[in-house]
Structures are given as structure tokens and as C-alpha cells.
């Protein structure tokens, strides 16, 4: 749980103290700053979320692994430059380290996309059919529904899809998504709301033909 404390920002310049929410990652970040080998705890905590984000963005396990690896290496190398920038607006429990890490991931993924333009890519729809984790699910009905949800998300425009994945898969708060995407919270809310409407329409139209 986040603790709220006062800290002095720019004391030398006479800026008034402001309220900051210390996120739950602060002890781990401080430990890693004091001893880089203790970065492992942060790595274990965020490996799956970062990998999920990369996989939903890139639609390929190998590319997602590459992006995940580059994200964590960059985070470790630049941890000394990480500054907690939590604001009251970020809400309780917001992790500025998590936002910082996902922003690195977003940039790494963007670079990966740029560099892979020359290479053939697997579309998210095709990737859904290849995804191993779904194969362990024996219930065929559930698999069909999962594939439909995946397809609906895959058809969303890039910014809406990214916001939906961060919200539903990685379970980031609106404030955190705003930090990752560099948008206002209001803009992110509208983005997700519109995405949900589009997904609802898509799922409805998918259900229509099968019902007939």
C-alpha cells in the first residue's frame, strides 16, 4: 500500500513542499540502487507484465522476448537516472517505477517495430491461433470466446489496443496508463471507453452470424 508523505522538491529554488505518494516499489528500487544485484526482485515482479505488454503489441513470442530483454537491460543500466515523480493525481498505490519501466518497454517495442518493417510479421489474429497457452484450455467454447475477444482487441486502432491491454491484461490504473502513454487521464478514460464500445460492437457482430 502506498504511503503519503511530504517531500521537498527543489528546496534550493524555494519551491513549496508537495505531497507525494511513495509507491510500493520504493524499497526494491532503493535496494537495487544501493546494490545492482538486487534488481532481480524488480525483474521477477515485472517480468510477466512487461512480457505480456510486448507480446500483445508484437504478436510474436520471440520478438516479445527480445523486447522484454532489452527493456530490463535498459532499466538496469539507467536505474540511477530513475526519479520518482509521483503526484497526488497518480492515486493510491500507483507505481512510478512501473510507469517508468513500461515507458521503456513502449520505446523498445516502437524501435522493434521500426526495425522489423523489413521482416515479415505475424498478425495478432494469426498469433491467436498459434498461442500455446490457449491450447491447454480443454473447453472448446471458452477457446472460441477467448479467440473472439483477442480478435476484437487486435482490430482496435493501435492507441486503443495498447490502452486496453495495459488496463485489462497488465491491470494498470488509468493514471499509470496515462504516464506510460504520455496522455492525460481523461484522454485515457475516453480511449478505453471507446475501445470497449468498439469491442462490444465487434463481439456482437461476431455472435450474430454464429447465432443464425
Amino acid at each position, binding site marked *: 500500500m502506498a504511503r503519503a508523505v511530504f517531500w521537498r522538491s527543489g528546496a534550493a529554488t524555494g519551491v513549496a513542499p508537495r505531497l507525494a505518494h511513495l509507491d510500493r516499489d520504493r524499497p526494491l528500487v532503493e535496494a537495487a540502487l544501493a*546494490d545492482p544485484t538486487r534488481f532481480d526482485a524488480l525483474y521477477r515482479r515485472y517480468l510477466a507484465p512487461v512480457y505480456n505488454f510486448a507480446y500483445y503489441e508484437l504478436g510474436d513470442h520471440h520478438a516479445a522476448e527480445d523486447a522484454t530483454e532489452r527493456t530490463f537491460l535498459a532499466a*538496469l543500466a539507467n536505474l540511477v*537516472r530513475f526519479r520518482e515523480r509521483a503526484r497526488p493525481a497518480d492515486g493510491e498505490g500507483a507505481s512510478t517505477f512501473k510507469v517508468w519501466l513500461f*515507458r521503456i518497454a513502449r520505446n523498445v517495442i516502437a524501435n522493434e517495430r521500426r526495425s522489423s518493417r523489413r521482416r515479415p510479421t505475424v498478425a495478432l489474429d494469426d498469433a491467436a491461433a498459434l498461442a500455446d*497457452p490457449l491450447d491447454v484450455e480443454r473447453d472448446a467454447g471458452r477457446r472460441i470466446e477467448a479467440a473472439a475477444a483477442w480478435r476484437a482487441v487486435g482490430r482496435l486502432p493501435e492507441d486503443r489496443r495498447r490502452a486496453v491491454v495495459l488496463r485489462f491484461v497488465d*491491470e494498470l490504473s488509468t493514471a499509470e496508463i496515462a504516464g506510460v502513454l504520455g*496522455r492525460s487521464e481523461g484522454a485515457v478514460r475516453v480511449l478505453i471507453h471507446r475501445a470497449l*464500445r468498439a*469491442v462490444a460492437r465487434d463481439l456482437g457482430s461476431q455472435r450474430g452470424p454464429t447465432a443464425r
Partner: protein
Amino acid sequence: MTHLGREAAEVEALVTDVYLDALLAGAERAARPRDPRAIVDAAVRLASSRLTRDLPRFHPSFRFEERLALRLAERAASMRLPAAAGAEGVVVPLLSRHPAPDPAAGDEVDAALEPASERAARGRAVARPILLGGAVAASALSLAGAAFVAWRRNRGAASPMARAARAAHAARASRILRPTPGRGGPA
């Protein structure tokens, strides 16, 4: 879109956001708002529950996880070496005209997150941390010590005691060098 229409969309999005917060926290029942004006659209509710339930969460392979953990540990160990050489050293930012690029997004994202005062300060001096104290200071002191000893050896002392010691040393040296009759020397 008109101003009123935009406001209505924002309110609707806000209500949906509150609903999602509760839904993702696992409190679907509590997510159903009591205020009839704040009822989330049925289609949006259905889409939300479908995405919450159906979007799979992936985990990379164990082999990948451990390989990357090992690589990070190696990198971390190499980063720890400078500190071990001078544990009392501190890492301070070195002024640079061309700061290293921030891996966490471009400037436009930073600008959105960063207060103006911090942004201005960041523009003045940033990046390129350097280890000060510790190994650097110890090396500098060693060099300074060696230089001081060399200087003292070459410098003529001015004190009477030093003059006496130098005279005694010179007399002893000349005695040793002077050939003693009957104990060698040129014939």
C-alpha cells in the same frame, strides 16, 4: 463534437473507469452503481467482463526467465565493481551539454510527467553519472604522496639540523670514496 457532447462522453468514460476499477479489483457486484444516472451501458459492461475473463495472460518460458536473470546478474555485478573499489564513493551527475538519451520515452512524455521547475533544472545539468571519492580520490592521494616524497628528496632543507645532517653525510661519503694508502689505489 460539441462541448456538451464532449462533456457527456467524458462523464460516461469516467463512470466506466470507476466500474472497471471495481471489476478488476474482483468486486463485480460492487461495480454495479446504485445511482441510476451512473449505470454503465450494458454493452460496455459485457465487453469489460469478456475482456477481463478472456484475454489470456502469458508468461515467458522458464528458460528465458532464468537466462535473462543470469544476464542481468552479470551486468549488475559489473556495475557493482566501481563501488567495491571505493565503497565510500558517491555517484553524482556530471554536467553535460549532450545528455545521454532517456530510455523511458521521448521528451514529450517527460514533459507531460515532469513539473516545469524540474524540467528546467534537467535542461541545465543532467546525466552521465560519475563515481567521485573512493577509488578516484585514493588514486589522486597516492599520486600526490609520491610527488611530495620526490620533491622532499630533491629539495635542499633550510633548517640547521638538516644542514648538519647533510654535511655529515657528505663527509662520510668523501671518506669512503678517498683511497686509503696501502689498501689498493693506483700504483
